[in-house]
């Protein structure tokens, strides 16, 4: 059945997006491949955190450079994404470690009951890695939208200084932000329905401190924080790099004459 859905998606993408649509399709499968690669390499005993950072870099590179090509916009986005990733990593590391967010809770007991827990890899690391890969998609999305839009703005208004350029980048970012938050919220809300059906009659303090609930909420909140933080960072770096590139090009043209 997944094959059928996948073919339907391919056909639709080709009709709507032509070659760009095909690239989207390839990137989607590359993403799935990267997640599988993450699992396999982790199984062979490599450190999940270091691996997840490498996977995030590969995911960023493939999405940015396949869909949008290698240029100043994508390079700027790449740098901004790495900065945000570093920040989120620090945040997540502290919270997962102190809050014992790793592993499974009661409702999964049946599913994990038959398995040995002696897997030789610390679940804390697996959890941190998972969170990092989880948020990479939304950060890429926001970042590339902002840097492309800023590039467009500069093309049309060459006289803008870097401060004005930064402001217009922030405006674009704000417009994207509210819809991104919606998208992320609905993408995982279905899990909450199941959770509350399972824990019918649970008290507020029980739910609030419950591991499975907190895992979902933390995923949601760090994706939010990541997708908001990327806005000023991309806008600021783009405002410098794009402007510098413009001056540089201008000088080159002068020399040609």
């Amino acid at each position, binding site marked *: 059945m997944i094959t059928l*859905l996948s073919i339907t998606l391919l056909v639709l993408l080709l009709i709507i997006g032509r070659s760009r649509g095909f690239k989207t399709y390839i990137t989607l499968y590359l993403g799935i491949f990267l997640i599988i690669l993450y699992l396999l390499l982790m199984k062979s005993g490599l450190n999940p955190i270091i691996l997840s950072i490498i996977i995030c870099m590969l995911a960023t590179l493939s999405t940015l450079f396949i869909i949008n090509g290698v240029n100043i916009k994508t390079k700027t986005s790449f740098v901004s994404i790495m900065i945000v990733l570093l920040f989120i990593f620090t945040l997540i590391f502290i919270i997962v470690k102190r809050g014992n967010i790793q592993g499974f809770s009661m409702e999964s007991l049946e599913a994990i009951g038959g398995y040995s827990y002696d897997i030789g890899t610390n*679940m804390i690391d697996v959890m941190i890695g998972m969170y990092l890969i989880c948020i990479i998609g939304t950060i890429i999305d926001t970042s590339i939208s902002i840097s492309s839009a800023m590039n467009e703005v500069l093309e049309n208004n060459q006289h803008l200084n870097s401060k004005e350029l930064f402001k217009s980048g922030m405006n674009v970012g704000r417009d994207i932000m*509210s*819809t991104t938050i919606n998208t992320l919220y609905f993408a995982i809300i279905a899990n909450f329905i199941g*959770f509350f059906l399972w824990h019918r009659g649970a008290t507020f303090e029980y739910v609030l*401190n419950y591991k499975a609930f907190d895992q979902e909420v933390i995923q949601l*909140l760090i994706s939010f924080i990541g997708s*908001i933080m990327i806005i000023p960072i991309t806008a600021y770096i783009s405002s410098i790099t794009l402007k510098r590139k413009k001056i540089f090009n201008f000088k080159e043209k002068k020399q040609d004459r």
Partner: protein
Amino acid sequence: MIELILYGDKMSKKFKIEIMILILFSLVSIIFVYNDHFLYKTPIMKVTEVKNGTKNSEMFKETYYNQEIKGIIKNGKYKGKEIKINNLVSKTGVYGDIVEKGNELLIEMSKTGEVNELIGVKRDKYLVILLVLFIDSIILVAGKKGVQTLISFFINIIVSAIAIFIFQKKFTTLNLLLLYIGVSVLFIVLSLFITNGKSKKTLSAIISSIASLFISFGLAFLIVKIYGGELSIWSMEYIEAVYDYENFFYVTILLCGLGAIMDISITISSSLNELIEKDPKIKKSALIKSGREISKDIVGTMTNVMLYTCYTPIVPMVFLAIKNNMKLFDALTFYGEVDLIAVFTSSISIVLAIPISLFIAIHILKPSKKEVQE
């Protein structure tokens, strides 16, 4: 707000006050959640000492920590009492909590004050810290728009909570799918209305979101119904608790792409609106062309968002399974099939939403020839 900080412009008095309020609010919430023991009915203990003994269980081969934990109770009848508790936890942390010094634990006590068992770590403070970070960053980055987004977000949460509450009460008689189709329409109307205000643009976005939702969900529903076969629905989390399990699966699919559909609709209708306002005589074909250009840019990264957000959470479960010698492909099918279906169906919704939104936006936004002449 952030422009002012970065470029060192003069801060207005109003701005200074707003920043002060934000800092005050953050500090108060965090201090509060670190001292909210009095609100809890469950006894909480603060860990003062942890001794880690290793113990090898004979049933399995795995290594366990046998933690001997000492601590002081922070609330309730036995406040101030020193207690001991044992905690058996696997070294890899697959199940249970690895307690450290300084942690606060929720415990179960009998009426006579004897310690029964450990419930878990007190995690509310981490949620509040993240929530405060989220609220602060959204207001700093987006100002007024950030507040609007927050309001719309909290209204969405309230609507979801009410829907879940209704369903909790009547879960055997109510049709989950029908309830959530209704709730989805409500979600669309509320969130687009709050963040974009009353205008033709919003109307167009609302209509195209609803139309895209029904068409794409209908398509997904048909494909699953006809070619469904043996779905590993039973591997879905919480499925045993859901009476109406087949519909629970459809609701998962329905909700997963909902936000993305709204995103596409509002992007297309606001950019077409922009074009029409600049040039009311713009041709229909030109509108379609630029609409497609805009959407091409979004689709690629949007499908990626769905993939990483919805598919990555299967990692811990699949990892545990393959470490226990389950074949990778089997584990992915068993634990990840439903999530992958959700990724594909929401990607299909994203792509389908483009022509639908374009069609509706052109019909609603484009003034008729008469209006242009006037």
